């Protein structure tokens, strides 16, 4: 039998928490029995709950956080606390806002102070009977020491396990997370409470995750395989088809004739277009060549013919004509120009008096120009020929393309009208065989992977079953104490026979609830309020089971009444009082109007009932202010009732 000694909060001191703006410091001690924080809607009851949990654990449970394993859960919520307190603590208060908790655990008293922006650190730590100087340590080391001391004295293996139990078992908060209807959480809870060691508990979580992953993969692969098989079947069906009957065969023949005609025309168009491309290429080549020859002709003409005839272009003559200077003797003046001009006009050389070749083109130059001209003429013929051919081919191409379009339109219309016959008549070709082979290969590969994943899941399942078996055996040992406790508490609330049985499923071991001998697995089988209190009863039974005779585990219950009617409020009150009277500290919040619940607790609590007025901490809304006196009257009545009971 495993006993866990959970810390009991004895005193709370909250400083400069901006949300509760009427008081800089809120401080009160928690007496044995039940402590209730009463307030109206929206005043911050749930926040106060999270503040206590944050003080204890350094984390705030994130609403809707999926649970996979103890370690993952701690990792996933550990960054949430900063987000949670943003807006609840103003930036100017961040350095001075803090929660101080005094708690007892075994024979130790721990007093800690934690800031709201420092979840991984403690501003102060004092532990009785511990000689270490925590004030000389870094805030982070203080936190580490606190976690170690707490874990050791509770009797757990890791601080993360404490966070898990505090979040899911000892606290019923605004998340309204229900153990009965979350098999994974409940199984981890049972593993922890029956005393399965930490490694095996972690193994169970790992194996469960592996199974889930492998099974999910198997499902996906199976789906994928079905898809592939369906496609293959469809393909085979299309390919196999039905034999064409006589009329259909004749229709298919007609289709084939049209198809042949299209192919034939298409082929003709291809031939013409190839010729056209060749002719255009020849034209481009010819035109380029003609251009080169033409340029050669131009250059030859300009350089040879005109240069030869330009006597005045000679440098000596240019000197005489422009600068009036003789290049031979150096004489200067206008007298130099006249004889030169006269000689040029008479077509004689100004120097040697020989006749200049004024009208006759040098024979060699002329010959070269004639050759180029001849070449150009031939090239031009070729270009003209190409142009002519292109013109003819263009006309021919137009005719062929139109002809192809006509036959293609005819074929399309025929195919549209006889689609079924055409599809079925098409012969199977080698390509289809390849496609089928590819499908078959894919299916085989998927199946291979599916079997591999299945085997992986089976292996994990086998190991997991061992742990399940151990849990079942341990549960047999605890059920004699645990189940009657649950029955008593739940019966107090519902007033009917209730029972719980361990139920082993493929991927979890959970507790099945029986109401009037009928199993109620689904959430909708019970009303919301019934579910809340039955789940609270389960937590109470678990807390009671792990507690030692001297140290009873506490329970934190946030506004549990929901939509309970008056009769059930009273019974719920009896259930809470029964648990508290057994020595379990209960810290709860409640709406002031749920007087029957609180009255019953106050009336029934033998160990005390402490009432704190949350509306004194924060400004009320206009509507709430109107009823403040009424709040006060009701709570005074409760105080009086509790006082008389305590006396």
């Amino acid at each position: 039998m495993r006993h866990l000694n959970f810390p009991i909060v004895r005193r709370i001191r909250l400083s400069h928490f901006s949300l509760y703006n009427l008081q800089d410091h809120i401080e009160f001690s928690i007496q044995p029995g039940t402590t209730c924080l009463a307030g109206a809607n929206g005043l911050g009851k749930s926040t106060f709950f999270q503040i206590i949990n944050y003080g204890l654990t350094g984390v705030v449970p994130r609403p809707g956080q999926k649970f996979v394993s103890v370690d993952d859960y701690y990792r996933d919520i550990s960054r949430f606390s900063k987000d949670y307190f943003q807006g609840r603590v103003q930036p100017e208060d961040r350095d001075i806002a803090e929660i101080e908790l005094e708690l007892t655990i075994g024979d130790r008293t721990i007093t800690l102070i934690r800031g709201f922006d420092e979840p991984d650190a403690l501003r102060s730590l004092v532990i009785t009977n511990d000689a270490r100087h925590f004030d000389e340590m870094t805030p982070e080391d203080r936190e580490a020491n606190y976690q170690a001391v707490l874990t050791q004295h509770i009797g757990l293996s890791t601080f993360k396990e404490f966070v898990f139990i505090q979040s899911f078992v000892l606290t019923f908060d605004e998340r309204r997370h229900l153990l009965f209807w979350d098999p994974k959480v409940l199984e981890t809870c049972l593993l922890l409470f029956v005393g399965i060691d930490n490694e095996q508990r972690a193994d169970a979580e790992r194996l469960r995750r592996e199974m889930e992953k492998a099974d999910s993969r198997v499902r996906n692969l199976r789906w994928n395989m079905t898809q592939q098989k369906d496609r293959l079947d469809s393909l085979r069906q299309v390919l196999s088809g039905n034999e064409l009957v006589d009329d259909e065969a004749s229709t298919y023949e007609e289709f084939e004739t049209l198809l042949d005609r299209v192919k034939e025309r298409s082929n003709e168009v291809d031939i013409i277009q190839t010729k056209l491309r060749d002719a255009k290429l020849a034209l481009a080549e010819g035109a380029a060549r003609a251009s080169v020859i033409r340029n050669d002709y131009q250059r030859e003409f300009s350089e040879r013919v005109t240069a030869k005839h330009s006597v005045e272009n000679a440098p000596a003559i240019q000197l005489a004509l422009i600068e009036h200077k003789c290049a031979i003797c150096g004489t200067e003046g206008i007298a130099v120009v006249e004889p030169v001009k006269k000689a040029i006009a008479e077509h004689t050389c100004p120097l040697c008096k020989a006749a200049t070749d004024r009208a006759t083109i040098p024979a060699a130059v002329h010959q070269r120009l004639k050759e180029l001209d001849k070449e150009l003429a031939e090239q031009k013929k070729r270009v003209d020929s190409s142009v002519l051919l292109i013109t003819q081919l263009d006309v021919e191409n137009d005719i062929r393309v139109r002809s192809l379009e006509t036959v293609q339109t005819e074929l399309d219309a025929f195919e549209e009208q006889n689609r079924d016959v055409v599809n079925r008549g098409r012969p199977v070709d080698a390509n289809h065989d390849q496609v089928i082979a590819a499908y078959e290969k894919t299916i085989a590969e998927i199946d291979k992977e599916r079997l591999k994943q299945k085997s992986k899941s089976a292996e994990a399942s086998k190991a997991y079953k061992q742990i399940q078996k151990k849990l079942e055996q341990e549960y047999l040992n605890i059920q004699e104490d645990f189940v009657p406790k649950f029955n008593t508490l739940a019966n107090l609330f519902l007033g009917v026979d209730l029972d719980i049985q361990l139920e082993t499923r493929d991927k979890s071991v959970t507790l099945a609830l029986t109401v009037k001998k009928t199993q109620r697995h689904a959430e909708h089988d019970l009303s919301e309020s019934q579910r809340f209190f039955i789940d609270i009863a389960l937590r109470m039974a678990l807390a009671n089971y792990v507690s030692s005779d001297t140290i009873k585990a506490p329970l934190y219950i946030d506004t549990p009444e929901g939509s309970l009617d008056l009769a059930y409020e009273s019974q719920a009150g009896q259930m809470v009082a029964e648990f508290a009277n057994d020595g379990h500290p209960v810290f709860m919040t409640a709406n002031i109007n749920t007087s029957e619940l609180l009255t019953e607790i106050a009336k029934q609590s033998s160990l005390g009932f402490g009432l704190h007025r949350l509306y004194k901490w924060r400004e009320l809304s206009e509507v709430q202010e109107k009823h403040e006196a009424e709040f006060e009257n009701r709570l005074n009545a409760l105080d009086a009732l509790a006082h008389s009971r305590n006396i």
Partner: protein
Amino acid sequence: MTSPQAYFDSLLLGSRLTQTVRGFSRSELHLLAYASCLLSLYGGKPVSDWEYEFSSTPSGLPFSKNLDDALDYCIRIGDITDHGELLQITSDGQTNLGIWKEHTINQERLAYLNGAADCLLLFTPSVIREAFAYEPALAFIKRHAQTAWLFSDPIVDRLHDTFGEIRELLPYQGSDLSLPLSAWLEYLLTIGRTHEHSN
């Protein structure tokens, strides 16, 4: 660098002008070469095939630098002589014309050059000059005293439109290109003179 085509055109048109009107001015030679180029365009040739370009002087007359250089060359080598205000082809020029006429490169242009020159049988050079002065592109340039290329894309497009109309109007489409040119010149003169008269 003298263009062989411009040289040949100078000789051919110089020869025709000397034979027909016993001499010519530089501007008349430019005018007939421009008319020849227009006929080549009319005949379906691209403008670039003419091998040299024309611009318009601020006085609204066509001018080609290549042709002017070729003319200078002709005068220098004695193919064309300068007789006072008029230019004339010489016997040397006639000899050279005979030589260059044999070249295929020049034969392509003969039809257009002769077509333009044939108009001299119907119109004096001054009348041809007057007619072209009414040509819309040249008239616009003259009005605005601009210098501009005469075969820019918009001008060529409009010329093609005009030529298309001329083709429709002329029932006979022979090889004699003087006919469409004469028709066009006649049209320009009629429109231009009517317009001036009305103003």
